[in-house]
């Protein structure tokens, strides 16, 4: 690995250690929830990053439709895949928190339900891409679908106020509904999660680009060999 890659990996590692320290040692337990509140640092941070990832998928899909450059489509695809992993993490961490606080692993609360819908929407996005063999058609269809699916993101955010479920509203227009130390911890977790998203997005996009280039070159070589065989045969 190159020096700057080592620097990036080291920074990420340090961020993870500091985040672990802030989440479990520096930040105090909450008055009513106790230590269960620590799940929220992961849960809220990964939820924000998941929404960001799907928002970026929608945006880059549009950029691809306008500019017709493959890199935007590759990035949109990778962002959706990472967003899917983060959403899975949101649902799992939310379930663990729900079991401790609400005494149930799952409830059909509007925020939980719309988040589950988001998970299915992006599962469909990935399956849709995989089911269309023509690369250009798959990219175009996925771009339009990704934009429409992203409508669920503001719905999830507004679901707490629109339908008044039992899901707590931690971040409002007035700010954070928690003490300053918890806000700092949450913000730091968010920065680390976002950094992790950016690093994986960048590496995976490079990989997707290289893999597509490799397939194109193999196709080119296959055609060249076929032409050569034809010439030798005739």
């Amino acid at each position, binding site marked *: 690995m190159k020096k700057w890659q080592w620097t990036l*990996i080291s920074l990420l590692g340090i961020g*993870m250690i500091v985040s672990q320290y802030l989440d479990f040692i520096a930040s105090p337990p909450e008055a009513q929830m*106790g*230590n269960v509140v620590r*799940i929220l640092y992961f849960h809220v941070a990964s939820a924000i990053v998941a929404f960001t990832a799907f928002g970026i998928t929608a945006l880059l899909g549009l950029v691809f439709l306008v500019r017709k450059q493959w890199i935007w489509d590759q990035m949109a695809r990778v962002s959706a895949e990472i967003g899917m992993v983060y959403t899975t993490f949101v649902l799992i961490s939310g379930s*663990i928190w729900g079991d401790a606080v609400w005494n149930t692993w799952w409830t059909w609360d509007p925020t939980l339900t719309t988040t589950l819908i988001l998970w299915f929407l992006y599962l469909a996005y990935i399956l849709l891409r995989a089911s269309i063999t023509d690369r250009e058609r798959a990219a175009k269809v996925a771009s339009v679908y990704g934009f429409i699916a992203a409508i669920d993101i503001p719905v999830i955010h507004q679901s707490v106020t629109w339908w008044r479920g039992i899901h707590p509203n931690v971040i409002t227009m007035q700010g954070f509904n928690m003490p300053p130390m918890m806000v700092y911890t949450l913000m730091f977790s968010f920065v680390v999660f976002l950094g992790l998203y950016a*690093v994986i997005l960048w590496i995976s996009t490079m990989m997707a680009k290289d893999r597509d280039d490799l397939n194109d*070159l193999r196709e080119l070589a296959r055609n060249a060999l076929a032409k050569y065989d034809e010439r030798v045969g005739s």
Partner: protein
Amino acid sequence: MIMLGYLFAAAAVVWVGTFFYVVALLQRQRRLRLELEDVKRMLEEIKE
């Protein structure tokens, strides 16, 4: 009630796993880049 020790251990396992996943991803990307350069070089040789 959730035990802090288990929660700490679970989070640590997730962080360590994620860290090694990123390192593995970087190495895989490097191998893919080398393979791509090999194929490019091979095609150049065929052209010549």
